C-alpha cells in the first residue's frame, strides 16, 4: 500500500470521510474492499444508508464482536458482518440484478488508474504472470449510476493514477463520476477532470504536476474541511 498517511493531503480515513459526505439519505451503497469499506464509519448520523454486498445481503452492519463471527454471514470481501433490522438475503443472480439493473445508487471502489473520460482500470496490471481475477468489479461499474473512486493520487512510485488514457486493462469505459484522492475531489465531466475541492496543504501546482491529464481548476476552489475527529 502507499504512503498516503505520511504525506501532504488527506489521510485514508479522511478520504473515506470525505466520500461519505456525498452519500444521500436512504441510498443503497456497495463498498469495495480496502479504503472504501471505511466510508461506512463516517456517514453523518442523520442519514440512513443501506449496504449491499454482491454475495446476497442488503442491510448488513459492522463486523461482529470477536467470537460472534458466522462463516456464512460475510461480505464480498469475505469478512464477517452483522445484520441490521430490515435486512434481506437473496441469491447471486438477484444480487447482480440489483447491480446491473441500476438499483444500487452508489458504488465506491479503489482504482489503479482513472482516465479523463471516466475509464477505470482496477482489476489487472496486465502482467503476464498474474492470475487474472475480476470478481464483481466490472458488473458494479457497468450497472451502478454513481461510480465513486477513492485512491491515492499517485502510485507507490509517484506516478499519476489520474491519466488522459489508462494503460492497464480496463474495468469499464466512461463510468467514473467522481474521484476522491488524498489531493482533492475530482469530478469526471464531459470535458475531463474538474477539481471540485482541494485538500489542506495541497497546492494546485502539486495537482497539476501529479495528474497525468488536464485538470480544470474552478475560480471558487473550496478547501476540504475535515473535522478534527477524523
Amino acid at each position, binding site marked *: 500500500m502507499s504512503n498516503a498517511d505520511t504525506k501532504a493531503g488527506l489521510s485514508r480515513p479522511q478520504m473515506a470521510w470525505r466520500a461519505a459526505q456525498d452519500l444521500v439519505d436512504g441510498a443503497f451503497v456497495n463498498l469495495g474492499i480496502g479504503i472504501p469499506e471505511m466510508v461506512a464509519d463516517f456517514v453523518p448520523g442523520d442519514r440512513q444508508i443501506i449496504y449491499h454486498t454482491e454475495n446476497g445481503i442488503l442491510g448488513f452492519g459492522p463486523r461482529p464482536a470477536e467470537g460472534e463471527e458466522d462463516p456464512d454471514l460475510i461480505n464480498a470481501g469475505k469478512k464477517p458482518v452483522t445484520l441490521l*433490522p430490515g435486512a*434481506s438475503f437473496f441469491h447471486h443472480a438477484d444480487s447482480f440484478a440489483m447491480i446491473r439493473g441500476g438499483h444500487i445508487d452508489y458504488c465506491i471502489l479503489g482504482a489503479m488508474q482513472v482516465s479523463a473520460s471516466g475509464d477505470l482500470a482496477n482489476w489487472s496490471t496486465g502482467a503476464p504472470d498474474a492470475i487474472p481475477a475480476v470478481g464483481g468489479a466490472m458488473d458494479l461499474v457497468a450497472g451502478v449510476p454513481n461510480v465513486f473512486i477513492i485512491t491515492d493520487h499517485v502510485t507507490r512510485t509517484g506516478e499519476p493514477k489520474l491519466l488522459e488514457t489508462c494503460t492497464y486493462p480496463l474495468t469499464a469505459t466512461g463510468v467514473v463520476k467522481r474521484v476522491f484522492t488524498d489531493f482533492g475531489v475530482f469530478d469526471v465531466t464531459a470535458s475531463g477532470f474538474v477539481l471540485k475541492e482541494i485538500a489542506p496543504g495541497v497546492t494546485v501546482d502539486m495537482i497539476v504536476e501529479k495528474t497525468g491529464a488536464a485538470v480544470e481548476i474552478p475560480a471558487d476552489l473550496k478547501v476540504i474541511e475535515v473535522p478534527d475527529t477524523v
Partner: protein
Amino acid sequence: MINKICPSVEAAVADIKDGATVMIGGFGEAGSPIELIHALIDQGARDLTVINNNTGNGQVGLAALIGAGRVRKMICSYPRSSQSKVFPELYRRGEIELELVPQGTLAERIRAGGAGVPAFYTPTSVGTPLAEGKEVREIEGRSYVLEYGLKADFALIRAEKADPLGNLTYYKAARNFGPIMAMAAKTTIVQARQVVEASGIDPEVVVTPGIFVNKVVEVADPAIESVLIEQGVSYP
C-alpha cells in the same frame, strides 16, 4: 430514517402522470392491487400503457381502468376471459392498442428489464406469427427469437406484509408478477395487507427486498374482484 409508508392509496398514486407506462401485478384477480387501481382511476391519469397478464374482468379493477378510457395500449398475454368484456369491445372499435406477448416471454422481459439485461433469446414463439419481424438466431442447432427487456415508470402490486424499508412477502399465488414488476419499475407502489416494523420480516423469507420498492400503503382488507363482480359493482 427510511419510511416508505404512505398514508393513503390516493397519496401513493398521486405522481402517476399522463402517458406513463404502468405495470400492474396480478394474474386474473389473484394478486390484483385493486385499491391502487381504483385510486388511479380517481386520480385521472390517462394515455397509459399498461402491462398485465390479462385485461381485467367485469367493471372493476383493471377492466374499470380500461373502461374509463385511460389506457392507450395493453401489453399482455391473454386479453380475454369469460368475464372480460371491456377490452374486447374497445379493441374491436380500434380504440386501444394491443401488444400480445407469450406469458413466459412477458415474465422474462419484465425480469430482464429489472435486471439490466436489455435483450435475450428465447425458443418461445419461433415459427409463429408472434415471431414475425423479430430477429431469429440459431444457437447450438436450435432457433431462438430475440426479445427485449421491459421497464415501466410505475408498478402497482399487492403484497402480504411490508416493512418501512419496503421489504415484502406475498400470499400464496398472489405472488405471480409482483416480485419481477417491482424490479422493473422506476417507482414501485405496493398495497400490503399488513405493515410491520423494520424487524418484522425474517431476512430469510423476504421475497422482494426493499430496494425494489418505493411506496407502501396498508390495505388491511382488500376487495375481492370476483365478489365485486358478483355483487354487480361497477367502479367508480
